[in-house]
């Protein structure tokens, strides 16, 4: 028998072990109580940490639910490669909901003026409805944004997929209420209590594979709205924008046309952790065009059914 590395003489768990135990508890509750859960996978570090926690929760059995990805057509190729390696290693079923297909099939309007970020919402809701998913795990964290700071771990969605922030169910102890009516579903946030730093510490500790764009690399970038954006045919340059090569990394993985990077030479997890620990801007505020539009941008998108 192996001695336990986490055991301390006073039977205390480190903060990471406590967070891990809480998240695993949530995964097991959902698997036990919901008919058809699904894990919403963006390819970013938070959804990869969720996959790792789900792997641990059910080991040596396979993860007893599918993973769902909304394909915006604007995802970083590095992120897709990492996703495919995780899917094949875990032997988990992958469901892809593509925005292009949804437009082709007339499920959502082909409105060039609507951002792909907005179109993710109806595409996602349609995939949840079509597949009959009753619970959808998301990688949202309460430290990310102040509307999220108030969201429950089990976050109820009505038959339109909407969140009603003023009418949330009380959530006490570790007793989660998963009751649903026909057509409703639950969003589940198993890493609600993790901070950005916790996520990085855990990735380092577990040796988890994440997309290479999180590490410092050379990239051709230009400045838009004060953010460094990737040069890509998907995001045509506007007047006055100049492309140059810089050493950068990404703090989040989103839509390639909206997700900015930061100048950084951090090429190991330890260096990233050091950088995150002294960062003076939130990861979303610094590099996500989608959260900047208004003070309540996230709250509004969440109400409609965003992740």
């Amino acid at each position: 028998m192996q001695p336990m590395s986490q055991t301390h003489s006073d039977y205390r768990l480190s903060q990471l072990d406590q967070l891990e135990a809480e998240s695993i508890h949530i995964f097991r509750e959902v698997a036990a109580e919901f008919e058809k859960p699904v894990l919403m996978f963006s390819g970013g570090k938070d959804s990869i940490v969720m996959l790792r926690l789900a792997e641990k929760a059910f080991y040596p059995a396979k993860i007893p639910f599918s993973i769902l990805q909304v394909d915006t057509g604007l995802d970083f190729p590095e992120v897709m490669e990492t996703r495919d390696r995780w899917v094949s290693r875990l032997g988990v079923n992958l469901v892809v909901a593509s925005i292009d297909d949804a437009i082709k099939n007339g499920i959502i309007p082909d409105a060039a003026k609507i951002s792909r970020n907005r179109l993710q919402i109806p595409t996602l809701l349609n995939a949840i409805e079509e597949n009959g998913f009753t619970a959808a795990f998301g990688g949202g964290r309460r430290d990310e944004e102040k509307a999220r700071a108030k969201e429950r771990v089990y976050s109820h969605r009505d038959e339109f997929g909407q969140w009603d922030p003023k009418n949330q169910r009380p959530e006490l102890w570790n007793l989660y209420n998963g009751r649903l009516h026909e057509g409703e579903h639950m969003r589940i946030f198993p890493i609600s209590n993790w901070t950005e730093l916790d996520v990085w510490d855990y990735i380092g500790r577990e040796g988890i594979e994440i997309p290479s764009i999180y590490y410092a690399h050379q990239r051709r970038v230009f400045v838009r709205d004060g953010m460094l954006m990737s040069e890509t045919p998907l995001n045509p340059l506007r007047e006055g924008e100049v492309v140059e090569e810089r050493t950068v990394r990404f703090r989040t993985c989103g839509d390639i046309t909206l997700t900015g990077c930061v100048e950084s030479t951090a090429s190991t997890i330890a260096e990233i952790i050091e950088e995150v620990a002294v960062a003076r801007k939130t990861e979303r505020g610094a590099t996500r065009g989608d959260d900047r539009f208004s003070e309540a941008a996230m709250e509004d998108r969440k109400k409609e059914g965003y992740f």
Partner: protein
Amino acid sequence: MDLLRFATAGSVDDGKSTLIGRLLLDSKAIFEDQLEAVEATSEAKGYDYTDLALLTDGLRSEREQGITIDVAYRYFATPNRKFIIADTPGHVQYTRNMVTGASTADLGLVLVDARQGLTEQSRRHAVILSLLRVPHLVLAVNKMDLVDFDQAVYDRIYAEFTQFATKLNVPDLEVIPISALQGDNVVTRSENMPWYSGPTLMHHLEHVHVASDRDLIDARFPVQYVVRPKSDEFHDYRGYAGQVAGGILKPGDEVVVLPSGMTSKISKIDLFDKEIAEAFPPMSVTVHLEDDVDVSRGDMIARVKNAPTPSQDIDAMVCWMTTAPLQPRQKLAIKHTTRTGRALVKDIQYRLDVNTLHRDQATNELGVNEIGRVTLRTTVPLLCDPYSKNRTTGSFILIDEATGVTVGAGMING
């Protein structure tokens, strides 16, 4: 690094948001863009100062009304500890939110305004924290700068509060004079109050000893999920997954499975792909038994000579959380650990006045945000302990079967 969860109670007037803002700012948990957004909003509203309450009020309706209506969770860390704050509104109409925030807290922080001393509200906050068995209580006497840092003011509030606290269950109390606005005794020791020799608030939060708060004697393991891989490699694998709710579990322990009463021995305990020598709260592990006994979700594994008594008659303090009142003969769904059943309200013994601790026995119902002593009869036996012994196996929630909404929170007496 370890973890401390604490709940704050107090109204905007007590300076709670300022205090939380200061804790976050001084521990560098506030980012530039968050602060800039708050500064811009404050300026747009024509305030003379940066309103740190805007950092903590997350919902649009809260910002519009300038009040906090829901529990918000905040995070910060010092080199020794990570902190999770459950920031709860203090008004009486939000008692249920305070109960929610306190349910998982190791420590409760109650603010009072030094100029006003103890109010009905601060007494209520202390009562709720003690009902929820939050083991550590801090009374922060705020706005000491507005009473000239006068020791007599502090002494008077200290005496009044400690006398009130004798009626409550408060195992550990610290009364700290502070000025959240000027920073006295928040992170750095105040030069204005040389008469105070106790810790600063941050020092106390960093060093308060929470290791002995958990029950490491009475082994309790509610089974959450049965892991059966049905793969060639793990053909005969059958493990019981769950989160340890009390005590220490070890391979070789003689155990009983409740409610069936079947006995067996723990053959091994898995933590992911490793076998471990012992499991304790709040670890999520997978337990294996030597014998092929029937175990499923909702069962509990305990020690043969130390197990909870299964009971269908439950005597509990209930906090009611919805507008339609709780009344005798009402039927509700009940969730206790991983066990779900139905409950019939037999009797409402009394309503507790959370301001005065008076027991109103004349009442026959509980309204929203009220707390009372209730007797329930359940369809399935609950494998429970008194809440005073174990906050996990002693608590339950009540769910309205028609709406699916959580309408009550219960703490089992005994």
